[in-house]
């Protein structure tokens, strides 16, 4: 009997059935909680951007571009209090504007193109972590724009975006005190809280708590810290931060190589 389309309405959206099937990779086997996925980093790949960087860590792919410094009319802000250490007063320092965007095809389900609150929160976290590293006093009344685009979310997206943004800033020739390296962690639900370094998307989805640390490796200063989820003993969070900082230090040589290679490429291009 033909279906009664006027009274029986089908669902508006249709999804592939695999979405509702059980995941093929079941509970992942006990992995080394301190393992870092191999990272591919490349800077200076966009010709039209001042500075750019692409970072891949496992399934996470993020592309970051930097433009500026652009002159901003800052006359109306007035003289703010001078920063610590005799830096330029607040009105004369440059500004960093960060934008974090998730591509609609980044997750398993298509997300709407317009930004959500989570993206604004992550953009703010990006800005807070990058500000200590950039020498903004060298760019008075100027504005730097950093935009990160997440192409695929395979876990630890914010950490990858942080690292890519720092690489892009260095590639753009913006003066910085140090690079910023980001590392993600997650803790599975359960009685014994073991923190996993650099979680995959599955581990992040099943996690009870997550943490992202941003470290400036040479200065050994934490640039940013963003955590969420269930509480728990303070010692476990301390342990997580320590694990994250270790992971950041381990990532540093890869990023160093990436920037040196990009500088070499630029030098070779300038000579030819």
């Amino acid at each position: 009997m033909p279906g009664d389309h006027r009274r029986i309405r089908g669902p508006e959206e249709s999804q592939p059935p695999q979405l509702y099937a059980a995941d093929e990779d079941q509970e992942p086997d006990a992995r080394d909680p301190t393992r870092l996925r191999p990272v591919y980093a490349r800077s200076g790949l966009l010709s039209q951007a001042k500075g750019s960087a692409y970072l891949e860590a496992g399934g996470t792919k993020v592309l970051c571009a930097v433009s500026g410094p652009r002159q901003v009319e800052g006359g109306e802000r007035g003289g703010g209090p001078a920063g610590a250490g005799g830096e330029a007063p607040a009105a004369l320092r440059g500004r960093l504007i960060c934008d974090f965007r998730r591509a609609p095809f980044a997750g398993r389900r298509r997300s709407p193109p317009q930004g959500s609150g989570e993206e604004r929160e992550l953009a703010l976290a990006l800005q807070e972590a990058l500000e200590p590293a950039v020498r903004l006093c060298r760019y008075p009344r100027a504005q730097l724009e950093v935009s990160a685009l997440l192409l695929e979310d395979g876990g630890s997206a914010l950490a990858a975006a942080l690292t890519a943004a720092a690489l892009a800033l260095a590639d753009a020739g913006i003066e910085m005190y140090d690079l910023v390296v980001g590392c993600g962690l997650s803790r599975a639900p359960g009685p014994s809280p073991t923190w996993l370094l650099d979680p995959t998307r599955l581990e992040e989805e099943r996690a009870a708590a997550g943490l992202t640390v941003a470290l400036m490796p040479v200065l050994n200063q934490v640039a940013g810290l963003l955590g969420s989820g269930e509480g728990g003993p303070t010692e476990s969070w301390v342990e997580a931060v320590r694990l994250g900082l270790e992971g950041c230090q381990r990532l540093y040589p890869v990023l160093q190589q990436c920037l040196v290679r990009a500088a070499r490429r630029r030098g070779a291009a300038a000579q030819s």
Partner: protein
Amino acid sequence: MAPPVRYCIPGERLCNLEEGSPGSGTYTRHGYIFSSLAGCVTKSSENGALPVVSVMRETESQLLPDVGAIVTCKVEIYKSFRPGDIVLAKVISLGDAQSNYLLTTAENELGVVVAHSESGVQMVPISWCEMQCPKTHTKEFRKVARVQPEFLQT
């Protein structure tokens, strides 16, 4: 034979403050010189003084002019003022030992208030950059001040 080029990244420790003095693209902390840019390290061998350690990028040396940098500007003074004009200006600095005041007219309310045309007649402002002589109707360029109404005497 070209000297080996040493590349560095921001935050890389270059050398001690005793071995060199910081140049452009570097900063100092805890008695060491760190790089601030991703580029090539260059050491200029000064005779006598310490070598200056700086980091150079191949593309552009500096993005924005520093305080004290020498820049070239193209100005057309004859379009802003002529000798004999009465000008409303603001003091921005009391000057140094020679006690020369530094004045600026870089605001809407500042600039030429009274000016005489080449025929000797006082001109009437018609826009922020032009004044007209009422006798010969010729227009001349000046940077005209937008005087506040309370200062005008009518």
